[in-house]
């Protein structure tokens, strides 16, 4: 639980604004994920290396896509909202393969 009370002195403001709410880790810690064994989303790093837009990196609300030093993309399926943003904003066919997690696995929203 993180207080959202604005506090001008709190650390973490990188743009001169006031305090920006809970850290991303604290934010994701509020979500119930029942992680399955199978990665329901796979990323073809070879295709990603030729991508200049990298729309998935900033648009994914769970922040699951990370650029790697060699120009590829690292993806972690475990804390995925299963929203579909990544494959919809991706303009490279075959880069992102998207399915649902196995039945009963994945995100469980309690206040959706």
């Amino acid at each position, binding site marked *: *639980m*993180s*207080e*959202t*009370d*604005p506090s001008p002195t709190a650390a973490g403001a990188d743009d001169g*604004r*006031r305090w*920006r*709410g*809970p850290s*991303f880790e*604290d*934010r*994701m810690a*509020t*979500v119930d994920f*029942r992680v399955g064994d199978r990665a329901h989303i796979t990323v073809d790093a070879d295709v990603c290396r030729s991508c200049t*837009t990298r*729309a998935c990196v*900033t*648009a994914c*609300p*769970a*922040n699951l896509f990370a650029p790697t030093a060699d120009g590829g993309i690292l993806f972690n399926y475990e804390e995925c*909202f*299963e*929203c*579909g*943003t990544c*494959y*919809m*904003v991706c303009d490279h066919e075959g880069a992102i393969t*998207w*399915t*649902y*997690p*196995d*039945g*009963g696995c*994945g*995100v*469980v*929203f*309690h*206040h*959706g």
Partner: protein
Amino acid sequence: MPGATTPDASSFDAIVVGAGPAGSAAALALARAGRSVVMVERGPFPGSKNVYGGVVYGRVLDAIVPRWWEEVPVERWVVRRSTMVMTEAQSLSIDYRSEAWGAAPFNGMTTVRSHFDSWLATKATAAGATLLTATVATGLVRDGGGRVVGVRTDRDGAELRAPVVIACDGVNSFLAKEAGLAPAPDASHHTLGVKEVLALPADVIDERFGVRGDQGVDIEMLGCTRGIPGGGFLYTNADTISVGVVVSLPHLAESKVRPEELVADLKDHPAIAPYLRGSSLREYAAHLIPEGGYDTMPTLVADGMLVAGDAAAMTLAAGIWLEGVNFAIGSGHAAGVAVDRALAVGDTSARGLASYRSALEAQFVLADHKRLRRAPALVLSERVQRRYPGLLCDLVEGMFTVTNPTPKRGGLRITRDAATTHGVKLRQLASDTLRAMRIFG
């Protein structure tokens, strides 16, 4: 044989994929008609994969669950609806309040999807529908002629068979795509909703929002998304507040702004921050919304298959009206009724199922969508999104800022100045007003 009774445990009169509001309404209609129907839900319980703003407009339930308001898992009844246009340091609200909305049959209610969707699914199972949770419908089963005759599941690859499959599998509907009913996914017809549910004691919510008991508030916002087409929302639940933004997917991607930053902006806004002070984050969530409207809907029927709810892009995102769950229930129920009729005459081909579409056209689901088909484009247009919020705020600021000893400016002068400041020609203002009147009038 269509319409026959269940020959074995894996064969039904109808299969409904997804136990959200569309799926449960479809299954309920079929079960009540005496049909054997199974709902296949991929989450551990209905509502577990669902996120909305949100408000449910319940009158669609009148014909389905008599006196639904006495049992629905409501958080608060919306008696105050506020539309707010804002800039970083300004906000202008149109705030409407009605005592009528706080009494039966009510208007809008805030509710939590894990509660609401589970409640509606229970109605279907009580009427005789079977609910399979934690099961993914991984694909369609077709006969030699290509007609849909069932679904494959991820339960040891088991198949379920039925003369009709109703796809209520949500915004990403893989089944509608597999059936060739939906076009390739297009980001420009979708928005991303990002929501925080913040805990706050009920009496604090009552005081801050000027309500009491089970009364609630709905605030819709425009101009709070850094120019990315979209808007913001705030809804009061019993002892939580739902706050978030909805933004155009391609524009979000292009902006390189992270979605949670937009929510943080909104929570920081001088008109919103005081409402949220001292609250703590209970859940962060995100979901896609099919906002393209009428012109982006898939074909609704195929041989042995229908599409309903978000899978059929039936969320209404027409600026001042933002509705989805009611459209899901309305379409799902109509699908169930159409399937029962088709089973009765033994024709579950696309032709036999065609009464589904005509039923939707005769009621609000397609009537509203058709009438408001040009609304999404106007609402997400450049001037509405980036110029008019500031223009309107400056106009009101100009009217009410007392500039003694300088005399007051006239209304036309203030309007002209505000328009110039925001790069809008009066001709454009007039033409957009006319366009809005044509769409909404």
